[in-house]
């Protein structure tokens, strides 16, 4: 365990966490990891009082909230093992500690980078202007008169600087949407290149022009123009390196969630590992269904049963023969007549049937409720055509008729945590306002949706850690594997190269599609 954590701390983003929170975070992860080893010995019956949702699901259940919670929880939590219990409470502590140090540690690094870039940009922008103005200021009388050529060059300098300004603003001054552990290699390279470039120009200018007080003003202005031209080309280089190079898809990334095996493929171009991780995470919130710990309880209880069945007694005397013990356990487990596959089959079939039945009841209840609304609307129109029913009132009017069916369905599919009464009412009035059908209203509840659809409190995944054997600023290669960890689960990413495609051509003569139809007709005359 310690070795794994050392690897993480070297390559992932721990370096920018401040001291005290690092310790708290480590403690959190220690506490998170340790109960796993004791999983098998824990009893299966443990009633957990989880952090309650924003509002109880049904209004009329609020009065008996405490007893109601126990009753409801008895139905759904057949086995809450130690891991989930600890991870919930641990997440709260981790969340609090991270909120504190978020505001201090990360901003420093981000702002440092920004200020350096801004200062350099300002310097670069003012350099050509300085080149042109300094001779005028310092030795105006000695300068040769320049006339129309110089004025033309002034105009071109002005416009090129304007274009450069707009281009830089468009390319670089964007809201950063993420905070990455290491610095962007290409951006840093470009900044260094610009710095060296401007520095060499200033050096030349200082030595050859300022010191010797050159009188050929046209030459000086052309020198400034060449600087601006070169800056525009560097800007072009920046576009190609930062934006265009990764557009062509070269790699296919397979992302698998560790807890339930949900997987997706994404196409990317040449990116560094940290940027690829960023793309994966952005798409994770949109594509993957929300992580629901309640769905994992069944497999955990089965795993616990496997482990809990056997205990090893060492009869021969002291001496910890670990490998011998595990071999004995495996042999005994194989010999035991295991009917757990049978249980699994019938359990799943039963669950499937129950879900379908409740879904049918739900759909019917919602359809009836919506027709009731239509009827009400028609009545209101007849009575007082100017008066429209408030969608919120309409929603509250029909909610009780379908609330029970909806609650039962959500409980069966273990989604009741993600929807509070207030959110359901809001969604209902939203659907009524937009004239949606019952099926459109139910779309949100019938199957779990992507993480973005739900309240931020229910996400279980806001802080991510990138774990990788290679350096995170190195580019993607075929066969690279990296892991994106958050507190409860992790996303394992496998990189595969899109194969080189050999496409050849085959010409088909259009005449080969022509046929002559010969008839045999008979005409009577």
């Amino acid at each position, binding site marked *: 365990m310690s070795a794994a954590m050392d690897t993480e701390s070297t390559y992932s983003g721990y370096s920018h966490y401040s001291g005290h929170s690092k310790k708290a975070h480590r403690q959190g992860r220690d506490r998170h990891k340790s109960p796993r080893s004791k999983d098998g010995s824990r009893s299966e019956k443990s009633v957990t009082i989880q952090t309650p949702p924003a509002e109880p699901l049904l209004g009329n259940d609020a009065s008996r909230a405490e007893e109601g919670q126990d009753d409801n929880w008895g139905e759904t939590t057949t086995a809450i093992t130690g891991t989930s219990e600890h991870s919930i409470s641990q997440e709260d502590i981790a969340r609090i500690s991270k909120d504190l140090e978020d505001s201090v540690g990360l901003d420093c690094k981000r702002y440092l980078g920004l200020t350096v870039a801004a200062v350099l940009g300002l310097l670069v922008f003012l350099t050509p202007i300085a080149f042109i103005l300094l001779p005028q200021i310092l030795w105006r009388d000695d300068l040769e008169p320049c006339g129309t050529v110089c004025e033309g060059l002034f105009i071109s300098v002005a416009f090129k600087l304007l274009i450069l300004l707009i281009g830089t603003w468009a390319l670089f001054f964007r809201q950063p949407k993420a905070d990455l552990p290491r610095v962007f290699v290409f951006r840093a390279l470009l900044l260094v290149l610009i710095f060296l470039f401007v520095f060499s120009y200033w050096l030349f200018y200082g030595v050859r022009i300022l010191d010797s007080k050159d009188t050929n003003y046209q030459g000086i202005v052309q020198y400034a123009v060449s600087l601006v031209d070169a800056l525009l080309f560097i800007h072009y280089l920046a576009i190609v390196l930062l934006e265009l190079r990764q557009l062509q898809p070269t790699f296919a990334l397979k992302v698998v969630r560790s807890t339930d095996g949900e997987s997706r493929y994404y196409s990317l171009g040449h990116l560094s590992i940290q940027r690829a991780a960023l793309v994966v995470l952005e798409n994770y919130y949109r594509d993957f269904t929300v992580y629901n710990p309640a769905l994992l309880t069944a497999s955990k209880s089965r795993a616990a049963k496997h482990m809990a069945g056997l205990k090893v007694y060492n009869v021969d005397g002291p001496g910890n023969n670990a490998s011998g013990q595990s071999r004995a356990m495996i042999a005994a487990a194989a010999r035991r007549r295991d009917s757990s596959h049978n249980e699994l089959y019938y359990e799943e079939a039963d669950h499937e049937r129950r879900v379908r039945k409740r879904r049918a009841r739900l759909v019917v209840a919602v359809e009836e409720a919506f027709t009731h609304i239509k009827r009400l609307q028609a009545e209101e129109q007849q009575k007082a055509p100017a008066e429209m029913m408030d969608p919120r009132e309409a929603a509250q009017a029909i909610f009780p008729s379908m609330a029970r069916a909806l609650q039962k369905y959500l409980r069966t599919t273990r989604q009741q945590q993600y929807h509070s009464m207030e959110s359901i009412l809001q969604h209902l009035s939203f659907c009524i306002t937009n004239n949606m059908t019952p099926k459109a209203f139910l779309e949100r509840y019938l199957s779990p949706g992507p993480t973005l659809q739900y309240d931020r409190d229910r996400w279980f995944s806001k802080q991510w850690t990138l774990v990788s054997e290679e350096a995170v600023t190195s580019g993607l290669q075929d066969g690279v594997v990296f892991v994106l960890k958050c507190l409860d689960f992790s996303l394992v990413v496998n990189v595969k190269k899109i194969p080189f495609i050999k496409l050849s051509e085959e010409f088909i003569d259009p005449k080969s599609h022509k046929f002559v139809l*010969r*008839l*045999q*007709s*008979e*005409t*009577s*005359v």
Partner: protein
Amino acid sequence: SYLISFSFQQRIEIHKLRQGDNLILGFSIGGGIDQDPTQNPFSEDKTDKGIYVTRVTEGGPAEVAGLQIGDKIMQVNGWDMTMVTHDQARKRLTKRNEEVVRLLVTRKSLQKAVQQSMMS
């Protein structure tokens, strides 16, 4: 005895019969350079794209004039019919201002050879 097959040409004059607005001849033709010659049951040579008589109506003007089924029409009123399309053949036979059509047809015939014994 032997069966000898040979073809001979015959001139046939058909007087068209008026039926309502039409003048009919009383037989059906098949064949033509735009048709499939292999499907012609009457031709000896299956690449022959000529016009053949495929049916003769009973009691019609063609039967009265002596036209028989399987005849190949070589000429109609002097117009050649060996290298025409099916539709051109139909048009040549059904001209509205002609009451009489003179056909030159070729017929295959089977005749029993004269027995040697009859000579002696």
